[in-house]
């Protein structure tokens, strides 16, 4: 019985086709290409080749190393974490509409950030946290939501994923009420900050902000990817996966914690960026297949790639002004997604 289960397990999951490997390889190349293009392009006039040859001025170096490079890296890791968290949560909930927002993590982070934007100045006038206050508050908000979910679902175990989804929706709604109240009591200037924050932006990121986020997100990715084969088995249903030797509780726990912290860190630094977490996994499935060993890294790469390009557009389309990146991700992604769906239907 055990050996049959093991062989079944391997036949479902160990398999990653050569086509999928090729797609992953291409996505890797695209990601690196877009990183290079994004670092080489911008409104400030400088050339990366001159920089490598040491021919750039001090100011150009600052613009490149302190403003542009951290921004490109941030967009890449945020895209990767939203993409992979979306894929993992869709797998976990066996629901194609699941996205990182669904379990309430984004809403929790948003509530934390909103609190700081609206009442922070009154309550922490002497705390010189400055630009760290907002990310720290957002992460605390996300952590609080995960903690609430954990308590309410008795360690994510109570009555399966449907219950968990419903609790997530309720938590989302509660956070939404909080944000609504704060929006209502906000002053003119605060309201405008809020509006821009909810559209997302990678502007103004600095290394001291970026490094902790990179650490959090990389640790999450490292914990998430080994769950791929367990996620495949979970598609059979929780009792079946359990009988095949998967510790369903632990899988749920690790996936929710890791994706929540990755998403929390992302939202904290870049605001609310919709679309990527929901649609990128579908794009990756449409072009390659549904097994998570391919899907998880594929979604991370595709998310990174899409986000870097979207941020590039947000920087250069209206330069020297910039467009909120959330607008661009949806503007690029949704028509492409529609096109893919129609193409699949015709075949």
């Amino acid at each position, binding site marked *: 019985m055990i050996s049959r289960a093991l062989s079944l397990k391997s036949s479902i999951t160990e398999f990653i086709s050569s086509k999928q490997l090729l797609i992953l390889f291409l996505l890797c190349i695209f990601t690196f290409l877009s990183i290079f293009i994004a670092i080489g392009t911008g409104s400030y006039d400088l050339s990366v080749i001159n920089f490598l040859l040491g021919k750039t001025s001090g100011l150009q170096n600052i613009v490149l190393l302190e*403003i542009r490079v951290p921004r490109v890296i941030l967009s890449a890791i945020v895209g990767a974490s939203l993409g992979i968290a979306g894929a993992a949560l869709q797998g976990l909930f066996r629901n194609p509409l699941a996205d990182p927002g669904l379990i309430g993590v984004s809403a929790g982070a948003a509530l934390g950030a909103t609190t700081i934007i609206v009442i922070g100045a009154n309550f922490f006038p002497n705390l010189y946290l400055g630009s760290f206050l907002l990310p720290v508050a957002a992460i605390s908000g996300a952590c609080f939501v995960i903690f609430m979910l954990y308590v309410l679902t008795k360690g994510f175990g109570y009555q399966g994923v449907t219950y968990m989804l419903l609790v997530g929706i309720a938590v989302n709604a509660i956070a939404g009420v909080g944000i609504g109240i704060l929006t209502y009591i906000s*002053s003119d200037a605060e309201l405008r900050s809020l509006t*821009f924050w909810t559209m997302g932006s990678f*502007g103004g990121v600095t290394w001291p902000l970026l490094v902790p986020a990179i*650490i*959090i997100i990389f640790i999450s990715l490292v914990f998430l990817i080994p769950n791929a084969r367990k996620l495949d088995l979970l598609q059979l249903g929780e009792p079946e996966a359990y009988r095949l030797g998967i510790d369903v509780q632990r899988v749920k726990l690790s996936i929710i914690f890791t994706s929540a912290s990755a998403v929390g860190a992302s939202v904290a630094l870049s605001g609310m960026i919709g679309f990527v977490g929901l649609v990128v996994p579908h794009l990756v499935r449409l072009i390659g297949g549904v097994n998570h060993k391919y899907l998880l890294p594929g979604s991370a790469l595709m998310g990174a790639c899409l986000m870097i390009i979207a941020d590039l557009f947000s*920087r250069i389309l209206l330069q020297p002004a910039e467009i909120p990146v959330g607008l661009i991700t949806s503007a690029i992604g949704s028509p492409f997604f529609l096109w893919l769906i129609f193409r699949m239907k015709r075949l």
Partner: protein
Amino acid sequence: MKYILTLFMAFSFQQQVFAVECSAASDATRVTVAGGSITEIMYMIDAEDSIIAVDLTSNFPERARSHPQIGYVRALSAEGILSLDPTIIIGENDMGPPAVLEQINRTGVEVAIVPEEHSVLGVKAKVKCIAEIVNKKIEAERLFEEKLDPAINKLEIASQKVLEKNTKAIFILGLQSGSPLIGGMDTSANGLIEMIGAKNVLSSFEGWKPVSTESILMAEPDVILISNRGLSAFGDVESLRQHPALALTPAAKNNNIIAMDGMAMLGFGPRTIFSALNIANDILDIND
């Protein structure tokens, strides 16, 4: 998690404080402006030659719009601004995001934030502040002597008369899901209404809020102030007078509705003083 939070905290104390408030810039030859009233003042004190870029709210004078556009004052882009090679950025107090200003400041570009106060004194201070920064004090003196001080004196007399008439006013910014969006306490609209000597009858709340039909009827405003853009949300003055929330107010019955350009009224540059004078004169004419 704890470790990461401490890491956050540790880094956060390294922040530097920027912003030279109202002291002469070391180099004001290439100025990026973030704030409509500042652009307005720059033009009035003959400092327009040093302007290299403006933000979205800088729509007066008309020719200011021909400068490169750095976008919305609260969502500036560090690299975009630096690409214009400015020596200083002069912005209103809501310029941001702070992280972007910090990045810009680190490259050696000065960042000056002009204090904002919604009163006649506030406007005067703003003009003096900007003149100090760009070193145009003589031109500012001339602006005061020729245009501002006479207008301020007339406004003082007119607002005194408006005050004696016990005029009740409200300011409508536009419509939000059918309800008029009204300027309460601590808004530029409240400052304008006080400037003309009227009483803001809907100032029990802070900021801009949609206000219910009943509250507006209760308030019985004698005058309704509205920005041109706000008026276009209603259609025209006639449809504004027929809006259910406003139709029964004294202002709508007597057709005391004053519509003007939003930035001219609420920007709190010199134009706000001229607008306030016009509004006060309007009210006095209408009431006589």
